[in-house]
């Protein structure tokens, strides 16, 4: 096996073997490496630049409203653009409540789906079901919203809301009069929307648990459930939190489906069975007819939404760190 050597290198009698190699590497390898490193660094930097630019410009647009409203921008629930009153508390509240409802429903469901697919389902069934779950993630959110309004609302949301207020109405969060068009209705549809992403990610997390861990549990006489609880779940905690956060991110920002189902009433109410409003839905619904100051307020609401997602993500990141440390 002879090395490909350039003609010049061969003709230069004095050049040693080592020098030849160095020269070849200079010509081909090093330049390509530098180029590659530069391109990837640029891509990475671009993300940071776009992010910083977005934060600065949106905050800048919204600044007059932040100044005129002060802290009441986030602490007041009075939203009257005609009177120049912009309090987004009701929308913040609606965003958090619908997302919380979505998580409460979607996390157990998603973990169930992915545990079934990784640990229980017969091999031939795993691929098709996993594929079907992943397909759910590809359905556009407006389709979820319309399906929620025209199919799920009469079929399930309205009856379920009425049932909840009838049986658990004495608890304030389930107080009537119950409506399917509500925090609850929007939360349920959000849950369905985020199941695919949570279950698809937690599936990978569960699959990454080493087979040695599973065997260790089985060899101690664990049943399948005991093996999952003892070996799979402890290894997966950090990953499950990560999957949940990505689902939550989608739920917080979801616009159309929530706008169709939440009822668009700017109130902070205790009951989740009553109509409400969310930041994203507010922006989508009122952006078109807003006056210049209203537009600044809407952009400000967007900045707050962005801040909420960042804070929740940082909290989750800290939670994961603490888990890993233990």
């Amino acid at each position: 096996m002879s090395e490909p050597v350039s003609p010049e290198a061969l003709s230069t009698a004095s050049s040693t073997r080592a020098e030849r190699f160095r020269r070849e590497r200079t010509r081909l390898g090093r330049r390509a490496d530098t180029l590659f490193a530069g391109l990837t660094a640029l891509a990475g930097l671009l993300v940071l630049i776009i992010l910083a630019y977005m934060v600065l410009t949106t905050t800048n647009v919204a600044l007059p409203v932040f100044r005129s409203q002060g802290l009441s921008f986030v602490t007041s629930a009075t939203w009257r653009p005609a009177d120049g009153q912009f309090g987004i508390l009701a929308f913040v509240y609606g965003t958090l409540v619908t997302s919380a409802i979505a998580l409460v429903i979607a996390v157990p469901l998603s973990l169930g789906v992915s545990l079934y697919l990784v640990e229980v389902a017969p091999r031939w069934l795993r691929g098709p079901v996993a594929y079907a779950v992943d397909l759910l993630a590809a359905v556009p959110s407006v389709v979820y919203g319309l399906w929620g309004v025209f199919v799920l609302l009469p079929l399930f949301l309205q009856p379920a809301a009425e049932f909840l207020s009838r049986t658990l109405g004495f608890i304030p969060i389930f107080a009537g009069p119950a409506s399917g068009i509500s925090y609850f209705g929007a939360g349920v549809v959000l849950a369905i929307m985020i199941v695919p992403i949570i279950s698809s990610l937690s599936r990978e997390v569960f699959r990454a648990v080493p087979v040695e861990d599973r065997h260790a549990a089985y060899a101690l006489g664990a049943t399948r459930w005991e093996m999952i609880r003892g070996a799979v779940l402890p290894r997966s905690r950090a990953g499950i939190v990560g999957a949940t956060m990505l689902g939550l991110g989608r739920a917080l920002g979801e616009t159309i489906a929530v706008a169709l189902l939440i009822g668009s009433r700017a109130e902070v109410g205790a009951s989740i069975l009553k109509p409400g409003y969310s930041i994203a839905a507010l922006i989508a619904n009122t952006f078109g007819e807003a006056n210049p100051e209203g537009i600044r307020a809407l952009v400000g609401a967007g900045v707050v939404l962005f801040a909420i997602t960042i804070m929740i993500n940082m909290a989750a990141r800290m939670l994961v760190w603490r888990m890993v440390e233990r």
Partner: protein
Amino acid sequence: MNENTISLEENITATERGSEGPAPAFGAPSVFTVRGLGVHYGGLPALRDVSLDVQPREITAIIGPSGCGKSTLIRCFNRMNDLIPGAEVSGEVLYHGEDIYAAGVDPVTVRRRIGMVFQRPNPFPKSVYDNVAFGARINGYKGDMDELVERSLRRAALWDEVKSKLRKSALALSGGQQQRLCIARAIAVEPDVILMDEPASALDPIATVRIEDLMQELKQEYSIVIVTHNMQQAARVSDRTAFLYTEVDEAAGQRWGILVEFGDTSDIFTRPRDKRTEDYVSGRFG
């Protein structure tokens, strides 16, 4: 898998092997009686016609070159092969006279009586304490858990090293400590057999010596079956040795493990009856 299904041929082989092997001590019936054991993975043979006996409070070593089915064999003793899709076991594995592959036998129950330690230390990502307590908890242990954890760790010769960090993660221990923790974890279930699948192969020489010393201690109370690719280890620690070897069918493109010789360890290493055993233990291959 009951007696009716065992062919006459297999019965003869079993009898022959039985007479070849060392006679069981009086009043000490075998812990395991293996007769005509075979394993197929997805229809392909992996192990054929193995018959041997495991005696109580002895260390039985399984040796042989790579791919001869040592791990497959030891995994038959606690039905771990059930976890491998497509694995089929034929023949008999009697545990104190009871066929553990009989219909209606729950592998979970089998594994609660027969502990196992694996090649790579595999503690759970939990505290040292919770690792040891895991098996006892799922078995519904009612006694004093602290006492059981301490006793198990002492028996695994690990107590003094970890008593101050019982609540720390087991993953922070060294490899050798992790492996002894896995032994403590197996002991805490109070089995009467411990299976060890190359327990020292991922450890350094000092940790290996500690595991070997520990095995001699454990032998007082438990029957131990150990798979090892290290002949010196088998010679050092075991009372009896089974030598497996790979048979090849060139025409069919298949290979599987067979039991070549089973007997007292001193006989296997000093007076092997089979040429292949002699070649292997004298280091001519493998």
